[in-house]
């Protein structure tokens, strides 16, 4: 009586594919690094590696935050604006005499609040994520400019502004921050049930709901994480540039989304990882760094960046299709 439908079915399990996939993206990154090592004298100098790690760090953190949102089939266009805005808030708090740590905490809290607002707009008001986060983008820049009256607020706290330049165990502090975000993010996304709910909501919201998953809370969570990562990047940026300025980080949302997508996340949701976007962000940073070292004309640099994005994602696509 026993029927064995399984003997016709033999699907490659998902986990193996994922590792393979990330390996090959890493492969691409390593390839770029080796090529640049051969093509330039200065690429593999400690100074340059530090620079590279610093330069990719902020996008990487934004990309991690964005990943949570994109896995739920959403999008967060506001992250660039949140970064700029947070730098203003922090600078403003410091200027007002708030001590550093409380100021940072308040800035991150404001990130949480923005995430809550996004969740509210999507869940309660029924707005498309694209719209609510685009609106926040616009408004936050406005509020930040109002606060600074269109210019910048200087940050005088030396210890704070030195932080972004500091190293720890030979690794730039900014890169440590990436690790600080990525490790819990990995545990959250891949090992905890909350992460699984993100995937479930992105895969089939109704199915998730019927399984008793609190879909609304999951969505809130994704946007809160994204906005908080962005606020955190705002703090790092403030440390790096030593000012609060609402117009900073323009277009970083696209960079973050691009890193995420290069890292194998699907904009239709339910597909994504933490390591992918990280690698994606450092691929983009490497392209820029390399072009600078090679003294590529900045116009050519744009052209090449575009082409490389196509090529990288194409090969990735090929391989994934092949491994099916």
């Amino acid at each position, binding site marked *: 009586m026993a029927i064995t*439908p*399984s003997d016709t*079915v033999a*699907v490659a399990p998902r986990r193996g594919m994922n590792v393979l996939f990330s390996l090959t993206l890493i492969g691409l990154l390593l390839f770029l690094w080796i090529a640049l090592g051969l093509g330039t004298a200065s690429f593999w100098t400690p100074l340059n590696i530090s620079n590279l790690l610093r330069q990719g760090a902020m996008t990487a953190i934004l990309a991690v935050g964005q990943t949570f949102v994109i896995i739920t089939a959403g999008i967060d266009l506001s992250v660039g604006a949140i970064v700029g805005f947070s730098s203003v808030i922090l600078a403003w708090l410091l200027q007002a005499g708030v001590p550093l740590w409380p100021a940072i905490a308040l800035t991150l809290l404001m990130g949480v609040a923005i995430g809550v607002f996004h969740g509210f707009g999507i869940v309660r008001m029924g707005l498309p994520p694209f719209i609510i986060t685009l609106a926040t983008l616009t408004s936050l820049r406005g509020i930040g400019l109002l606060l600074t009256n269109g210019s910048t607020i200087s940050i005088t706290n030396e210890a704070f502004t030195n932080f972004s330049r500091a190293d720890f165990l030979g690794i730039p502090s900014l890169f440590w921050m990436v690790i600080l975000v990525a490790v819990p993010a990995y*545990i959250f996304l891949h090992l*905890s049930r909350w992460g699984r709910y993100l995937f479930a909501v992105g895969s089939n919201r109704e199915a998730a*709901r019927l*399984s008793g998953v609190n879909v609304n809370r999951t969505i809130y969570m994704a946007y809160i994480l994204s906005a908080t990562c962005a606020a955190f990047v705002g703090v790092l940026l403030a440390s790096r540039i030593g000012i609060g300025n609402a117009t900073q980080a323009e277009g970083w949302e696209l960079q973050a989304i691009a890193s995420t997508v290069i890292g194998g996340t699907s904009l239709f949701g*339910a597909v994504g990882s933490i390591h992918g976007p990280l690698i994606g962000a450092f691929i983009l940073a490497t392209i820029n760094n390399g072009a600078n070292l090679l003294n590529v004309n900045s116009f050519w640099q744009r052209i090449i960046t575009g082409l490389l994005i196509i090529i990288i994602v194409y090969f990735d696509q090929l391989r994934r299709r092949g491994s099916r």
Partner: protein
Amino acid sequence: MTSLEQVAHRHDDSPVLAEANRVPPGSPILELKGLQKNYGYVQALKPATVTFLAGEIHAIVGENGAGKSTLIKLLTGVITRTAGEILWCGNSVALATPNEAIARGINAVHQEVVLCPHLSVAANLFLGDEINRNGLMRKRQMEKMAQAVLDDLGFHLPAAAVLSSLTIGQQQLVATARAAMRGTQFLIFDEPTAYLTRQESAQLFKLIRRLQGEGVTIVYISHRMEEVFELADRVSVLRDGTHVGTRLVGETNENELIALMINRSIEQIYHKEEIPLGETILEARGLSGPGFENVSLSVRAGEIVGLYGLIGAGRSEFALGLYGRHSTTSGEIHWMGKKVDIRDERAAMDLGIALAPESRRDQGLCLNLPIGLNINLPVFKRLSRGPVISRKDEAANADKQIRDLSIKTPSRRVLVSSMSGGNQQKVVIGKWLSHGARLFIFDEPTVGVDVGTKAEIYRLFATLLKGGAGIILISSYLPEVYELADRLHVFRRGQLVGSHDFHAASHEDVLAEAIGV
């Protein structure tokens, strides 16, 4: 304890869940009093009053769109009622959210598979009910338990596989396993066998009886009368959203139920006329492709060629190969005596082939578009004058199919997603009837379709045949192919393993061939 029991009894200490255990078998466990649901102006369920008794298997039958699925969705917190009252173990309950239903032990296997296609089978089985330690999921343990449960149920599915890599039938089994795992007290099946073959159905029935043995109350919705009579203790009939009666299965018969359902009787469901066979329309010679190998068969004008097999036997793949959706690797196709190369779907359509595919959700319908657009999609070219579509012809064609197939809808502008399952299936059929082809391939055409309409569809087949067309009928529902096909081919693992003229082999022979014993 079996694996299923182990998993299912994880939550036995929950007081809410235990509530149902105190209801003695045979007394009311769930009572619906004047339950009502409106979608805007649509009264999907008029005040309905039904009582379910603890431990019984209670079948619900009714035409497409009668409100069966609506009823189920109300009981499981998928949608909220417009009016009425639900008594659970004698107490009035809200059942406003899925969580509330799950907490009380009310679960359902819905008509449309509602799982997460991107997640693994194991992840789907445990979704919302994960096993954690220190805040982290026990992935490996869950996978092992999932596999054990699947094996225990005899489903033989890989727990680690991504859900979307399974066929719909297999997914339906996953949904079943899931419902059985959740410490269920009250389990509802909404047409669970629609995508299953007889063997899988038998497996499912075994599971249902096993659950009944453990005291679970079962509600069973089906369009297949023989299943109702095989399984159920009592049966309720819905018509146009109204509860028109409940009978003890032992005290009623098929004709009475059908009469209650559609307010008239059908003498015979399978409609087979003597139609003289004409020229050979299509011949496949040693055709191989992804999922099928060395298949040779032919279809003549006026002939229904039936393809039977188990899930995954490769019939659908063969059909897609004929239709140019998958490229064939070897063999020949002859059309009206001439060798042809069918490169893509359009080429097939231009020859005169129509394919009503197997999965209405994935292949058949644009769910969030209107019925009319769906019906007309293959024929817009014919409906256009130059670049512009004739609105009149467009409307006329859509309305004709809606009428011919008695599709229950207020207007062709209604979105397909808001239709009942059976009515959606009719749209898939209607879409291809207007194409005016010489060869119709119907892949599981009557999945979820009510008896009355089935008869209607079979009658339409006869009309097509009389018009000089040939039909390839793929069905996992043996009675259907057995009673209709002039020639019946049996598939097993991608190969044609047996061919029989009308009624030349017995049901048992055909089954044996399909299983390969």
